[in-house]
């Protein structure tokens, strides 16, 4: 059991998905319950497994632990090699939490629920796989498995909404049905797949230049690629994975996608999937291509700073609640990339911590937004007001999320933003910290404005006076995520202790040649 723990974590959702597909829908309420219970059990196994994995990870030892190696196509060097590193543990737990909460939050899905849960579980199996796979090709394979179900999930269960046509390109709105769920799904899929194409080309180069015998990421990281190659390939990896991480200007799929996606899918997508992108940039791009990373880091950091500011400004201009949260994700993912671009231990710790903190926070946000939308049937914040009087629980947790989003001390958001900005200030490009902090300030404006106009102020208008607070399973999702935010805020060491050895080790690889040079007379 123990030696196969990682495969169990990855396989449990996939197997649950398979079982769900074979549950007959004829029994009505019973089979609906069965579908949900099987999904929940699958999610719970992975969640518990990830907790066990992180508990048993030897922090002092660091490095890769629990290595499992299954040859898939040995003649071409493809192995399903799974192992846990310092970063993997916290991210596994994050995925476990979000999946568990996501299943709870989508308890009330009505149409075609069997397929919904199956796809959700398949997607998560892909995410788990990315975080633990140590073989570049398998990493990519899991990455694709995580990305593609989104198309169907948004296209079927998503929601369409009107986006007013503006600007010189008004006619485009009519051609493409902007705001429609099919449009959002297609845009998201195609943009992410263009990214995948870039990644695939990069993988070819990495594989062939390393001798063409193995995809093992450890081996590739120890291969010395020549400077020219690194400088050409790094942007491919950065923009390829970066598309999923919402790197400006390739973030445009994210607001449309998140706004159209159903609750659990937004939770998983903003909460976990966008992290895959950032994780890929750091784990594949920076660690395997250190020279390329050092060459491109000024650009990566500058673009990340733009992300933070631009995302925040865009969020300020929105009146649709989901768009606000979606743009805030773009802004917060900028913080992750900024931390990565500092190439310092503090920055990397902050970046990975921000992945976890933002994942939980966005998960909470989208769960709550879904809840509000389901009851009020609107997401226009200007129409709402005073909801706290009818749904106090939701209001409280939403406010908690907002506080974490703007980085209030005592919440998880503070820890990561503080670390990243500190690292940015101390790095060679100290001026990056300025747009970063400015972005955090603007975040405060828009999240507080949104909270106020939805929940506080005079009581709800007569359209909304009969809204109810969260119910049964919904409480489960909210409380788990909300408490994680506070716990991590007060006790960041809980996961930082695992992240740190990972960051130190990987950063050592990125910076090694520099320190060797520095030692020369």
């Amino acid at each position: 059991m123990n030696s196969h723990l990682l495969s169990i974590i990855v396989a449990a959702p996939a197997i649950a998905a398979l079982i769900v597909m074979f549950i007959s829908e004829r029994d009505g309420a019973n089979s609906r319950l069965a579908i949900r219970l099987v999904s929940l059990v699958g999610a719970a196994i992975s969640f518990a497994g990830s907790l066990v994995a992180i508990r048993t990870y030897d922090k002092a030892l660091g490095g890769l632990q629990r290595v499992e190696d299954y040859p898939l196509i040995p003649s071409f060097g493809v192995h399903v090699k799974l192992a846990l590193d310092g970063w993997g543990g916290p991210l596994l737990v994050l995925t476990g939490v979000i999946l568990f909460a996501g299943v709870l939050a989508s308890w009330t899905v009505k149409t075609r629920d069997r397929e919904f849960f199956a796809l959700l579980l398949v997607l998560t199996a892909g995410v788990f796989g990315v975080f633990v796979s140590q073989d570049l090709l398998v990493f990519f394979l899991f990455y694709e498995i995580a990305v593609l179900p989104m198309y169907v999930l948004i296209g079927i269960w998503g929601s369409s909404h009107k986006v007013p046509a503006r600007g010189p390109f008004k006619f485009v709105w009519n051609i493409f049905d902007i705001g429609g769920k099919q449009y959002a799904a297609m845009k998201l899929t195609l943009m992410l797949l263009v990214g995948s194409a870039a990644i695939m080309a990069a993988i070819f180069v990495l594989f062939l230049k390393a001798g063409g015998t193995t995809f093992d990421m450890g081996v590739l990281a120890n291969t010395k690629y020549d400077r020219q190659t690194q400088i050409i390939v790094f942007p491919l990896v950065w923009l390829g994975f970066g598309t999923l991480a919402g790197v400006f200007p390739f973030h445009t799929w994210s607001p449309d996608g998140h706004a159209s996606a159903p609750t659990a899918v937004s939770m998983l997508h903003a909460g976990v999937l966008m992290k895959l992108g950032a994780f890929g940039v750091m784990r594949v791009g920076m660690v395997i291509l250190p020279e390329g990373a050092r060459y491109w880091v000024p650009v990566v950091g500058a673009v990340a700073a733009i992300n933070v500011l631009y995302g925040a400004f865009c969020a300020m201009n929105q009146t649709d609640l989901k768009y606000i949260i979606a743009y805030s994700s773009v802004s917060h993912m900028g913080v992750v990339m900024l931390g990565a671009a500092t190439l310092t231990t503090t920055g990397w710790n902050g970046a990975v911590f921000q992945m976890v903190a933002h994942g939980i926070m966005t998960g909470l946000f989208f769960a709550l937004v879904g809840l509000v939308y389901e009851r009020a049937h609107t997401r226009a914040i200007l129409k709402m007001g005073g909801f706290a009087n009818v749904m106090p629980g939701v209001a409280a947790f939403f406010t908690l999320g907002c506080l974490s989003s703007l980085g209030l001390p005592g919440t998880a958001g503070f820890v990561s933003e503080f670390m990243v900005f500190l690292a940015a200030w101390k790095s060679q490009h100290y001026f990056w910290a300025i747009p970063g902090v400015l972005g955090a300030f603007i975040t405060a404006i828009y999240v507080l404005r949104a909270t106020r106009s939805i929940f506080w102020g005079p009581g709800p208008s007569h359209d909304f006076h009969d809204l109810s607070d969260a119910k049964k399973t919904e409480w489960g999702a909210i409380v788990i995520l909300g408490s994680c935010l506070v716990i991590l805020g007060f006790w960041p060491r809980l996961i930082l202790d695992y992240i740190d050895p990972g960051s130190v080790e990987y950063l050592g690889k990125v910076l090694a040649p520099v320190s060797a040079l520095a030692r020369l007379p």
Partner: protein
Amino acid sequence: MKELATLWLPLAVSALAVVALLVDLMLPVPPPGGARSKTPAPVVGWVVILGLAALFCVSFFHETNSGTAMHGAYRASYFATYLQRLFLMGGLLGALGGLDDVAKRTPHRQGEFWLMLLSSLAGMMILPGARDLLLIVVAFELMGIPLYIMAAYSKTDAEPTGAGVAPRGWASEAGLKMYLVGATSTAITLFGLALLTGMQGTTKLDLLAATPLSPLAALGLVFVLGGVGYKIGMVPFHMWVPDTYQGASTPFVAFLSVAPKAAGMSVLTSIFLFGLGAHKDVWLPPMAIIAFLSMGVGNLLALPQTDLRRLLGYSGIAQMGYVLVALAANDAMGLGMVLFFLTAYLFTNLGAFLVVHTAAEAGGGYTFASLSGLHRRSPGLALSLLMFLLSLAGIPFVIGFWAKLYVFLAAWRAGLIGLVISGIVLAVMGLFYYLRVLQAAYMTDEGDLPTPQPPPALQLAIGLCVLAVVGLGLWPRPLIEASTRAGVEMMAPLQAAQAQAAVKLTQR
């Protein structure tokens, strides 16, 4: 006697054709008049199916991987065995898929259809082992001519059902168009081969590269590329593909879209890699251009299609472009991946056509509307379609992903980086139209079409395809190892010889 043993597999297929003919002769002839309305059982079809299945199984227990026949014109090899199995599988799946359709459309002349299928298959079986240009031409025509007849076979039928009722005689148009373009392309091939053999002084593949290529022979080579390229539907010889696919009966098209293409690829491989691999610099530029055009035109023209058969037709043109990319690599891995891709394509495309056929039979014709609500009407069928589309688009955990990945990797390794990058970009663009089909099947639910009820044989064919697409996607190792083995077997000695020649050249 030894020669016969070497040729046992092609001979067995021919024998099966004779058996099928005899069985057909022994069937009672329906009396003219009233009794004709009763549909006779597809006896011959089942004979063919069982025979092909048996041959496929036996080929694993009795492999003939060495030996020559017909004075060296035919040479057995693992490469040939691999492709022969592929053709047998294609024939088997095509027969399973077409069994009930043939019985329904042409109830009283089923026997000839199966005879044609087996003749065509016999031609294919000889092709991969053929080492002489004459034998290649003869076998290629043996494969091709029955296909024209089969395309026009249901010539008196109207479209089965559907909103847009099609005019009669589409099958005739399909057959005629295919025949005219096919006959022209045969003439072009022959002309090219005449130039080639005339200048090189031999018809034997092994001796073809011995003398340097004269300009006239190089011209002949281009003609050959065009002529054979017609059969695999590569640009600019692709015009017949969408029309024929639209006009002929769809289960036959399912077969037509995979097996003859694989056979055409095997001919290209024989002539260009085995015969003229040493003169790569002559044929690589036109081949690369054609590969690029096939990928581009196929993917771009598939975008606006509204008829599913035409869409799959253009997608098939693009898929052949990917194969050509691997072929252009001209090394062991490239050849192995050509075989691997063709195998993946066989199951995927055949399955996709059969699903589309099943859905269209239930109503709505071959339009996107016929797929509307398929996920509700027939979840299994919708899921199968999903798998085939994912595989065609090259998405992980189905076999198409590995196929595309390794085709591109092989070409990249051989230095065809520009071709690979354009291929990857075009593949992503191609995703759009596969997603449109998916969208029709999974995200629309308009109108109230009946539940498709495929007959058992068709179900079996689709099931086998899904099994292969998913099973080999999760566990591609045996297939990749087999195809690589075939590639190495054929290319390793050639590459060694070419390297030696290069060394000699530098020493001089």
